[in-house]
């Protein structure tokens, strides 16, 4: 009885010979060749270089130069006090008038209005 439950090498080999053998899927080689062609095509493409950011960076520096020069000049003129000679005459006269009359603070008027309210 036990002997029936055992299997020898020959029997196993006969059974293994009956195992499924997969057939190559139809069109498998054509699909692989298509993928190869796709990869080859990808290899021949010259990638476009993104030059725009580099140009923008260079332009940024160039644009900064006049701004920096303008700032330096402004600081120089401001500290030297010679800037007023470059300003229009009408503007400088007004400024002179204001300085001679003293500062207009509006505090006096405010006080008078406050007194009116009390009365």
């Amino acid at each position: 009885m036990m002997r029936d439950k055992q299997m020898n090498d020959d029997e196993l080999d006969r059974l293994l010979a009956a195992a499924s053998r997969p057939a190559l899927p139809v069109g498998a080689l054509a699909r692989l060749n298509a993928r190869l062609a796709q990869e080859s095509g990808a290899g021949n493409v010259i990638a476009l270089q993104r030059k725009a950011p580099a140009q923008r960076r260079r332009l940024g520096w160039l644009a900064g130069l006049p701004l920096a020069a303008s700032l330096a000049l402004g600081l120089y003129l401001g500290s030297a006090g010679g800037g007023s000679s470059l300003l229009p005459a009408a503007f400088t006269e007004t400024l002179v008038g204001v300085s001679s009359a003293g500062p207009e603070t509006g505090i006096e008027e405010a006080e008078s209005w406050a007194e009116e309210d009390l009365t």
Partner: protein
Amino acid sequence: MLASVRQQRADLHQASDADLLLAASRKDQAAFSRLVERHFTLVHRVVWRQSNGHADAEDIAQEAFLRLWRNPAQVREAGALKGWLLRVAHNLMMDRFRQTPLQVLDDEDRIVDSRDNAEEALGRTEVAAAIDGAIARLPERQRFALTLVHFEQLTNIAAAEVMEVSVDALESLLSRARRSLKEQLAAHKDMLLAGLAGERT
């Protein structure tokens, strides 16, 4: 013109793997396609067996060839090409199914249950399904050894190289695989063998 194309095709058919690999390294797709024709069926069959007939077997085999196409210099000796392809395909398969393990159908139970009569012998298709199921239930390394040596007729040395194990280790895997298959199939051996002989009682 036509004659030269024919001559070129004939040359490709006669070219050795080494020549074809060299040409492939210069991105000669015709030469590489010849390599594909020679080895794709084997690689597909091994992946199919290892993945228990999974639908992704073709895709995995394709991926192995694409890796070779991208860098043919990876194979230093043409004699090692077949082993390289099988190893890469196997590794790709393992990576793919690491996340979602392969399901093993319990063909043995299904077959026994499907019988109308306990004495009835199985058909050839059912016998094949029972054997496929038993192979699928083997541990992965045992199944790989059995596939390479028994189904693909690789020598023990070549199979051991593919599996990156010693020949002794490979023989041990083979021995355990056969023992396990015998144990699995012994209970139904009369029915299975009768099915092979085409008997119906």
